[in-house]
């Protein structure tokens, strides 16, 4: 289990990295934390001909408050840094909650926030979370940059709109409105393992406890993470009663997901636990919203 050889580039600035990516075109691949990529390379399932290593670009690693009270997170910020950032804990405790489920501590030390999202593993937590939080992704290429909403970033399993000469540079999270609550729940076989199903909800209540807004993502139950439309249809404008939440669980699991059977869980089991997880996630998210988020 030794990787194939490749050309190696270790730019020390973003501009240098973008020049290299532009030069390499389809031959180049970004190396961020490498915690998925290098494992795949050791199996020789991934055989990139050139790697552009971003680990020597300090300017890509940061957690910065934005003017509107949100956060901007540099693509090379380690998951561990996000997990332990007081800024993140204060503004987006959901991210801290999720981070603890991502693999094991040693992987989180090295694995990066942006790398995990750009990897677009349908069973990975961060791509789903980027969608439910509606993060804005800054994609940069040589002499060009564009912003893409996270739900539009991921177009298939392990597929994003990022072109070979581009890279994901930053993720921006807008502040939550008042009375917003969020909750991530998952079922996996073991700690640090892939989720067999996971649900994250971000909900906002008005002053009369009526649901103003809801985003709910369903993970590992279809080819790509699913942003639930049913949750919005059913909940927005009404009180999130037990019955309403159960109606969302029923509707979402019958019409929005398409779970597959694999080694560790049947499709039926996935559907069943997803239903449970939707109820758990929404119930707690609304509770948190009531308490002020």
């Amino acid at each position: 289990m030794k990787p194939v050889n490749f050309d190696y580039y270790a730019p020390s600035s973003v501009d240098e990295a973008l020049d290299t990516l532009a030069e390499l075109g389809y031959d180049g691949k970004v190396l961020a934390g490498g915690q998925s990529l290098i494992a795949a390379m050791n199996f020789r399932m991934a055989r990139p001909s050139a790697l552009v290593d971003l680990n020597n670009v300090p300017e890509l690693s940061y957690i910065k408050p934005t003017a509107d009270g949100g956060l901007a997170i540099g693509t090379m910020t380690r998951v561990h840094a996000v997990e332990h950032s007081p800024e993140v804990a204060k503004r987006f405790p959901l991210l801290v909650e999720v981070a603890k489920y991502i693999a094991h501590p040693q992987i989180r030390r090295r694995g990066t926030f942006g790398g995990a999202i750009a990897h677009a593993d349908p069973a990975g937590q961060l791509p789903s979370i980027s969608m439910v939080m509606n993060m804005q992704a800054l994609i940069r290429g040589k002499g060009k940059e564009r912003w893409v909403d996270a739900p539009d970033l991921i177009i298939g399993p392990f597929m994003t709109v990022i072109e070979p000469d581009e890279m994901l540079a930053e993720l921006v999270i807008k502040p939550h409105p008042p009375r917003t609550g969020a909750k991530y729940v998952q079922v996996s076989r073991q700690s640090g393992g892939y989720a067999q199903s996971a649900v994250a909800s971000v909900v906002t209540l008005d002053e009369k406890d009526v649901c103003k807004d809801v985003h709910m993502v369903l993970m590992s139950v279809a080819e790509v993470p699913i942003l639930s439309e049913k949750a919005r249809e059913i909940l927005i404008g009404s009180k999130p009663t037990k019955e309403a939440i159960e109606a969302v669980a029923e509707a979402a699991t019958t019409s929005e997901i398409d779970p597959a059977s694999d080694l560790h869980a049947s499709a039926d089991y996935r559907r069943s636990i997803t239903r449970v997880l939707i109820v758990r996630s929404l119930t707690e998210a609304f509770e948190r919203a009531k308490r002020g988020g």
Partner: protein
Amino acid sequence: MTGKYFGKPVKRLEDKFLLTGNAKFIDDIQLPGMLHAAFLRSDYAHAKIIKIDYSEALKRPGVVAVYTAEDFGDFWKPGPLQVPPPTAIPGSKFNARTLVPIAKDKIRFSGEPLAVVIAESRYIAEDAFDDIIVDVEPLPAVVDLEKAWEDTSVLVHDDLGTNLAALVTQESGSYEEAKKQADVVVSKRMLIEHVAAAAMENRGFVVNWDERNQELTVWAGTQSPLTIRGSISRALGLAESQVHVITPYIGGGFGPKVMSSQADDVLLPWISKQLKRPIKWIEDRRENFLATTSERDQVHHCEIALKKDGTILGFKDVFYHNTGAYDSYGMTVPLNTQTHTVSNYRVPNFYTQIRMVFTNQMVVTPVRGAGRSEGIHAMERMIDFAAHELGMDPVELRLKNLLKPEEFPLKTGIIGQDFVEGVLDSGDYLGNMKMCLDMVEYDKFRKEIQPKARKEGKRLGIGVVAFTEGTAVGPYEGVKLTVSTNGKVTLATGYSSQGQGHFTVFAQIVADALNVKVEDVKVITGDTLHFAWGAGTFASRGATLVGTATHLASQKVRAKIFATASKALGVPEDQVDLCEGSVCVIGKPESSIPLGTLASMANPMRGVVEPGVEPGLEATAYYGPPHGATGSGACAVILDIDPDTCKPTIERFVLVHDCGTVINPLLLEGQLQGGVSMGIGNAFYEKMVYDENGQMVTASFMDYLMPLASDMPKKIEMGHLHTPSPLNPLGIKGVGEAGALPPPPAFAQAFEDAFYDKKLELLESNLSPSVIFSYLKKAEGE
């Protein structure tokens, strides 16, 4: 029996090297001019080889040589039958088709070696795989055991005309007669699923042919250095004295490392002789999953016949056993199944049939549990199903039928892996069970805890099982014990060590016998230059066989010490005393001789010795038991199951065990805890899966789930009974595999108990939440 060290929780002598990175493992061997081997392995499970073209690979810089089966000429042949079948079972059939070192003409399992690349580095060797063109004609794969038994349309070995590897029927009493007397007969079909040993260190092999000395040196991560020395010498036409096998520190064994005559130990010595260069091969995790051996994977068709009051009259078990593509390891595993199926209970009539099947899968050899797991699982589950049928508490049914201490020794009428009729030597199976029930507070659980939990809507279930572990089988092991002139003692054995603590437990026995400090006893394991006799590390036999041989050798050396000291001190032997590290005259401690000095005296350089006197404070001893010693135990588990996700939390885990006399209670706990973690893995997490094409779909730790720290119960509550074995002077029984045995049936029972109202009957051994969910759905009629 206790001494200064024997019976005490002595800390391990080997730890300080292991903890600091100073223990030499196989991949730590580095020789000048060493080349690296990698095996190109088949992606197909079953195929005809048309052509393998490696001409391009030879052009790659750094590639030194490439070989396929054709290149080995007459040297290529199927390997030896490492374990022959017992001849004593009348009417048994065994078709020997032994492992070939590298596929020729036909591929029989996915992962089978097709070519071996020798290169300057492992990286380059793997690169060369891309250059090799393998042209094959794929064949349908034989995967399903029961189907393969009947269906001869696809054959793993064409010349056999069948996929039957073995058919063995054994019976004590008459099951059919018993059935006629029975009030209740219950029949079930059960799966016991395929698992990996997954030692943390993979296998490895380093070989160096010394042309000048005409000697081959081999370093191997093997459980059986003498078997490997024998097979290599025979294959190369060398005398055993020309082949020196060294086992370095080994990162866990658990069974598969006992298998020899594989591609590495057959082909690499030959290649090293050809190239006159040392060669290293380190198995990677993917190879370990695909091509090292694995185990379990049986399908049982069981029937139990009982009286209304729960008395067991008879048991019948016809089981299919997957041997994989070859059967070099004989029938060890299914014979263990046969001997363990009824070993806990009074079963006057027992019929058991092995249907061993060739499949297009990796070879099956023992993995911790080694057939015992399957037999115990089958029996324990059938008792549960019978209890459901009889409306009895499963514990009550067990108590009624467990063997009593006065019934030992008990001849079972079933011939086992050691080729002799099974004899349960001693034990207190009822005592184990009663202690276990007390510890888990069974009555309180049934009367108070569970009813209360059920009222609260909780799914709390209990499982209680009994088990035996046949250990310490023959033929024999031996040691050589030497007191050195520096006063320290060296013990050499042919046994190899994979972390069991042999360096400490054997030293404890010696230290007490010779009254030296335990740290002054150095144990050398598995180095054929130091000791060249023995069978290998398997069947929990180290402490008993090597331990007893150590005891015997210690007594011999002790006698030599007394004889030599008597002369040197000028007093009769009964006036000589062993002080720590020296000999002295009783009552006159000032008149003493250090052991090292005495060792010099025992090797006179001039003068005359008396007839019959052998030099040195040294002795060799061997021990071979007439049959194995049987350990036993009982286990209780309480599970709290989340009804929404079917995920269990282990609330309690109680294990009572009896392995006779204990040499080191600290290490005993370690063995049991480690075994339990593997058993819990088997019950919940670990499952090797082949698809219908014979492709293993669990060839990584991402898919093959190993139990982690947070998966284990917080505390394994342990109780110990000590019924010494009458078979050996120290009263020892083995313990290596015990912990792995009870979890799967205990967990199944606990799941069924938690969902008592759903009347589940769990008919497989790996009970993932998704599997439990599917049983629940079925019970609800969905």
